């Protein structure tokens, strides 16, 4: 015999599973979103496993030393020469079969792309989370408080909007040197103002809703109302924006790298790899095409997921 308590607990579990099923159903309903999710998950898995699939030392074992390029034999055609091999070419003396060809350094391009995915994803996550948290906090307070504070914050964001984002990031990176941290900071600098505007607009409309009045009548403090209720109701567009921005930031970050702000020229990073192939665009186009394609696919996937997230997360749309 089941006790009453157990029955209730089982009921709760069933409800939760049903809820999860419904979530999955919403996701599955839209094939594009499904594709986006699968691609995203694939890249995330690839990022997590990259160091197992490919020996990370390969990327850094190379370097110009005494007039000679020293490469792991396994990944290049012949020591001393940079030879770009096209996709699908196998080298007789060994297991080498370059699915995507080799890059300008003679390294296996596929291996380098795999190694660069965690770099790009990690940077995108760091940049977007800092920008989103900062922008959301400031925008939420500005929208809720209103008045002079709101006005001041808006004018500050206007200043940032007035500059072309990439140029500002370039200037910042040029001023403070080419380290990973500077690059991240440079992109954060141009990435937070849209969050301020987005959340501020949401909060402005949300704070006039009757339930806020009800909460005030309940004796809830402003801090509680803002951070627990109003913000929670306005956060969904932000989550969607974050997902979409992950793709955008990867593009911007790679663009900076492509323009030569990479901390090290041999660093495996999509923009860096593409920049590497820029000089050989006619004789070895694959060096530029494949990293570029991967960038495209990743950012597209994040955009598709962002689309789907909106439908799945917002309880107001789940009916």
């Amino acid at each position: 015999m089941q006790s009453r308590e157990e029955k209730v607990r089982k009921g709760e579990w069933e409800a939760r599973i049903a809820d999860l099923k419904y979530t999955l159903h919403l996701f599955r309903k839209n094939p594009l979103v499904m594709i986006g999710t699968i691609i995203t998950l694939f890249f995330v898995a690839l990022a997590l496993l990259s160091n197992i699939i490919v020996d990370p030392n390969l990327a850094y074992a190379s370097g110009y030393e005494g007039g000679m390029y020293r490469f792991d034999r396994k990944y290049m055609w012949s020591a001393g020469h940079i030879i770009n091999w096209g996709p699908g070419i196998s080298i007789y003396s060994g297991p080498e079969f370059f699915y995507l060809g080799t890059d300008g350094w003679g390294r296996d391009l596929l291996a380098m792309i795999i190694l660069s995915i965690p770099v790009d994803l990690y940077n995108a996550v760091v940049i977007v989370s800092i920008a989103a948290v900062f922008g959301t906090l400031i925008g939420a307070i500005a929208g809720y408080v209103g008045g002079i504070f709101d006005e001041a914050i808006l004018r500050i964001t206007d200043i940032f909007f007035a500059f072309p984002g990439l140029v500002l990031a370039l200037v910042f990176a040029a001023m403070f040197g080419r380290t990973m941290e500077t690059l991240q900071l440079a992109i954060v600098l141009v990435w937070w103002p849209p969050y301020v505007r987005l959340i501020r607009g949401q909060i402005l409309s949300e704070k006039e809703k009757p339930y806020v009045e009800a909460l005030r009548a309940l004796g809830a403090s402003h801090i509680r109302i803002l951070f627990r209720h109003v913000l929670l109701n306005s956060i969904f567009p932000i989550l969607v924006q974050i997902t979409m921005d992950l793709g955008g930031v990867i593009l911007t970050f790679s663009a900076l790298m492509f323009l030569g702000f990479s901390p090290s020229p041999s660093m495996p990073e999509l923009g860096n790899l593409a920049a590497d192939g820029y000089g050989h665009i006619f004789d070895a186009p694959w060096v530029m095409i494949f990293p570029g394609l991967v960038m495209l696919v990743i950012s597209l996937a994040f955009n598709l997921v962002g689309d789907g997230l909106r439908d799945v997360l917002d309880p107001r749309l789940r009916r």
Partner: protein
Amino acid sequence: MAEKRAESQPVLEIRNLKVNFSTYKGIVKALNGVDLKLYSREVLALVGESGCGKSVTAQTLIGLLPENASILEGEMILNGKNLTKKSKEEMRMLRAQAIAIVFQDPMTFLNPVLTIETQLEEVFMLQKNLLREAVAIQKAEGDVKFADLIKAKSAGSSQTDKGASKKETKKVAKKLSIDLLRMVKLPDPKRILKQYPFELSGGMRQRAMIAMAFARRPSLFIADEITTALDVTIQAQILHLLKGLRDRIDASTLMITHDLSVAAEVADRIAVMYGGNIVETALTRALFRKPFHPYTQMLLRAIPNILNPVERLESIPGTVPEMINPPPGCRFHPRCPHAMEICKGERPKLLEVEKKHEVACYLY
């Protein structure tokens, strides 16, 4: 019973309350000297047409007037404390503990993205003492019901367990939530706790709102048109619920409505409001049997009566007074069939013409 109530000290007393709104068009004199008494455990219905100041009275009571409003004169005394002199923070604490309000539209007054459980819990979390009390009872008796807490409050013998841990208070809060939902007659409270507002019907939401209001153990419960947005059957159920809860919750109720039949259903006393004044207060039966004020008389004649059907219902001639330049003296005199010269002069005072029946009119 009603007699006994009326003789006790009033829980809430509003004296000569005047509230103005400054707008682009001019100063709107929304409340023009409201006098009201609410006795312990009494249900007082405040009836009147749209724009007569019912809701402004409620907003003033909970201290949540819009920014362009100001209290000119008058005082509101709740349990001997003058609300007009309270600071914003003190008013917030009062809203969390002593005054509860339920609004008109249950569809929009609940946070759409939190479960009922979270929202109910939140009400409890805003007053830690209640939970500590509950933990004390739980420890002493092994179980706690919301009714115990109310009993403790009425008796004035509340013991708090200061050392209550977070886990204990959470557990007690959940227990009380379920008990409260059961009190407002929601079926399967455990399931409802896990649900979001949009999964509930209008009536269920209004019940949840009522539960949240009573979770504060208020001494003053304001029901601001709570049945207006509901259909008639649900309306009847909610009114029935309020009636049933009335004696189990130690609170006085101020029921704001424009529907005289709703007032007749639940109220002990009715106060009729017109143009920012109370024009007549009387026990419910007395008011329907023998209305004194011309406005009340005409109002009652405008309602269809099943026992006494008429071909055509009477309506009150004229329109609602403009509140920026209200008519001088008695605000009803331009529409009043018995208007006299004196009505244009000074505003008539509320006078007791019969036992517990006050009218503000020069006819009496």
